[in-house]
């Protein structure tokens, strides 16, 4: 941390950006000084990445971007302009990282070299880091595909520089309302991005999400909808955390023929007839796999695919469908054969912290990244499906990434988890808040351990977990990274940037 803090990167970059003349600097990549500045920025960024790794600060997934942007605020635009590459941007509340992982595997199988911002580092610095680490000093990327997951918050700043060829929206759930203001103003931001895309671009939308499907109907870009057309696994009633259960057109409550995750499903408005659009990429059959995950059949314009999604849960079926839809928009050097696609997706491992199974000495840890009611409920249900008592470590911190407002914890169905709980440890800078939520969900405060320090909490939680039973960790982004770092130092997990 000390090195990061001493560098005046943020202050300098901010000052440069506030100046109204900054586009002039950003948009003259031909000039010799601009070229030198870019080279300097890229060199500085690359050096920062090396330093960060050597000094053990982490993978350097966002720090290099900060440094490079400090040297040259127009670095992202120049890199994409200097390279002849296609770009795919994935945004939405949930499933960005997993969708990108699957999409990268598919693009790779199709013969495209991919540069992406991995590790969920999806704020602006992370995006720039990804681009600059793959580029040479003249700003040219050797890869043919720039695949970026981008946080809704920075979307409108990154898109004008990027001009993505394919823009994927996974879903919109309530997600850190204190950062985004209201749900609909965030939706409007995404909508204006879609409206700004040229006719040559393709926008890939979740047709099962009533809000996402309604985005920018008059936009020039080609539209493609993905979703699930198999009615068996869903139920009829959206769960509590459902966000968009009223018709976007007329506010009348929607009726669902099937609900698969939260408010995602086959909906129709009985009042105005607004209904789920025809799906271009449709999952038509879902079977639980003999191994982890699901066996699915997907119909696409490029043919029918039979796939094994090695990641558990219906939300990952959506992620696979989103990725496959995105892949069909790419001109792949080798057309994607069903068998290649199957092999590619089969090899995808969970993104770090997404219900990751970890051997912790003689114990077993399941590490889950939870950030909103939907991701929490979905992951919790996966955990509840497994037999045996549950040992829980729940950690949340208030940071820029995790937000300040944890009221959403009250929308999580923790009442289902508490009766099956054998032990509970809460942690993070908002440990008191988490403890309060669990108390009102029925947990006994007398047996609850409240340990704000993440490493100490992990030790205490493991000490209270018998070796035959797993410890389930539900954590926000920052505490999840911290807990994983502790486990990495103990040699239990590989560093996340090596995944």
């Amino acid at each position, binding site marked *: *941390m000390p090195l990061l*803090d001493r560098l005046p990167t*943020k202050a300098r970059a*901010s000052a440069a*950006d*506030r100046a109204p003349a900054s586009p002039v600097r950003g948009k003259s990549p031909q000039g010799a000084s601009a070229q030198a500045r870019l080279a300097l920025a890229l060199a500085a960024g690359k050096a920062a990445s090396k330093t960060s790794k050597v000094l053990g600060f982490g993978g350097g997934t966002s720090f290099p971007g900060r440094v490079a942007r400090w040297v040259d605020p127009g670095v992202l635009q120049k890199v994409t302009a200097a390279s002849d590459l296609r770009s795919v941007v994935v945004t939405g509340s949930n499933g960005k990282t997993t969708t990108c992982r699957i999409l990268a595997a598919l693009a790779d199988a199709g013969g495209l070299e991919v540069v992406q911002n991995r590790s969920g580092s999806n*704020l*602006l610095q992370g995006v720039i880091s990804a681009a600059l680490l793959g580029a040479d000093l003249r700003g040219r990327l050797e890869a043919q595909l720039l695949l970026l997951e981008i946080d809704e*918050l*920075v979307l409108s*700043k990154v898109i004008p520089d990027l001009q993505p060829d394919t823009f994927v929206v996974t879903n919109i759930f*309530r997600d850190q*309302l*204190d*950062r985004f*203001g*209201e*749900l*609909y103003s965030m939706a409007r931001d995404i909508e204006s991005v879609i409206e700004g895309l040229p006719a040559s671009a393709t926008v890939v939308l979740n047709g099962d999400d009533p809000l996402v499907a309604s985005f920018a109907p008059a936009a020039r870009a080609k539209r493609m909808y993905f979703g699930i057309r198999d009615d068996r696994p869903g139920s009829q009633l959206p769960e*509590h955390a459902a*966000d968009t*259960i*009223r018709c976007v057109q007329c*506010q009348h*409550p929607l009726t669902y023929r099937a609900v698969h995750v939260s408010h995602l499903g086959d909906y129709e408005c009985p009042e105005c007839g607004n209904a789920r659009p025809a799906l271009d990429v449709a999952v038509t059959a879902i079977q639980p796999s003999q191994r982890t995950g699901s066996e699915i059949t997907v119909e696409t314009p490029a043919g029918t695919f039979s796939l094994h999604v090695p990641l558990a849960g219906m939300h990952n079926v959506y992620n696979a469908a989103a990725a496959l839809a995105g892949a069909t928009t790419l001109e792949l050097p080798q057309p994607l054969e069903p068998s290649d696609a199957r092999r590619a997706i089969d090899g995808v491992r969970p993104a770090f912290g997404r219900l990751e199974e970890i051997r912790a000495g003689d114990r077993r840890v399941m590490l889950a990244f939870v950030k909103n009611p939907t991701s929490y409920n979905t992951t919790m249900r996966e955990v509840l499906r497994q037999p045996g008592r549950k040992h829980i470590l729940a950690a949340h*911190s*208030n*940071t*820029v*990434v995790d937000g*300040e*407002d944890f*009221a*959403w*914890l*009250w*929308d999580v169905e923790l009442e289902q988890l508490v009766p099956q709980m054998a032990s509970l440890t809460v942690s993070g*800078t*908002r*440990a*008191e*808040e988490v*403890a*309060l*939520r669990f*108390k*009102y*969900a029925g947990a006994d*405060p007398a047996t*609850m351990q*409240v340990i*704000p*320090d993440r490493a100490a909490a992990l030790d205490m939680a493991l000490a209270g977990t018998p070796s035959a039973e797993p410890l389930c960790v539900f954590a926000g982004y*920052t505490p999840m990274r911290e807990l994983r770092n502790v486990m990495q130092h103990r040699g239990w997990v590989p560093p996340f940037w090596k995944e």
Partner: protein
Amino acid sequence: MAQAPVVRVCYLYPRLLSVAGDRGNLFALLQRCAWRGIEYTVTEADVGEVPDFAQADIVLLHGGQDREMTAAARDMAAKAAPLRDAIENDAVVLAVCAGYQLLSHYYAPVSGPAIQGIGVLDAFTEGGQKRFIGHVAVECSLSPGQRHQLAGFENHSGRTWLGKSAEPLGRVIAGNGNNGEDGTEGARYREVYATYLHGPVLPKNPWLADHLLARALARRYQDFGPLAPLPDHTESQAQVAALRLARHQASGWRSAAAAISRFALQRPAPVSASGRQYDEMAGSPVGDKVDEVDPSVPDQRLEMPEPATSAEPR
């Protein structure tokens, strides 16, 4: 007591107005009844359903976004008369954010038509350009000689101004409250308690939850004594932490400079944006704990150079 007491909760728009964890207020009321062996019932009433407000002891009306609020306002027309009667008969009402605005005269957003409320509270709301998002600390004195602190999280663009016949729920210590200018937060009328505070507000301010329960029980059962005390350690820890966040958030460089000069001059702190002098936390049960910073709690706020919104200026 002649009959076992029952608290009848009427939960309005459980699906429509439910975006920021506000259902935690319901959980708080129910759990605090259950822990004391008090029976309760819950009646939910969504769009198109008019509950028997005369039978309700406590009515909950929560927050929602503009779109949902518009739908609720349209539906409130049918509920307005019986709800107004119940309020005039001292039914207890907790209204949060959009629910607060729905009980007032109107809410006029920056863009779009004004949304009419039922006008029980003498207050109106105009949209503002900058959204108020952040932790809030409020000091309340609901009955003479009693002072309590209220901690919560606000997220609203409306600026609410109180008329003559509504009094504020409390005074802002840190944060914005009703409008960020006059230092007021929320509104009170008879047994209506309206606030902008999410969090949700009742679990981490159990005194307010108990106040609502006590008033509801006293109204229906004249011989009902004081509520049995509960072990509220977890609640007060969460409240203290939230109050501390509200304080730290208020301490930008300007208030840091003010703090230094205060220290030098040994003067008490002024309160809120209006600069009004305030007798800080006197008599408050948690007041003296608020400034204590637990060294074992790494406070990330202090390490963060800037909040997310300004970290990447356009």
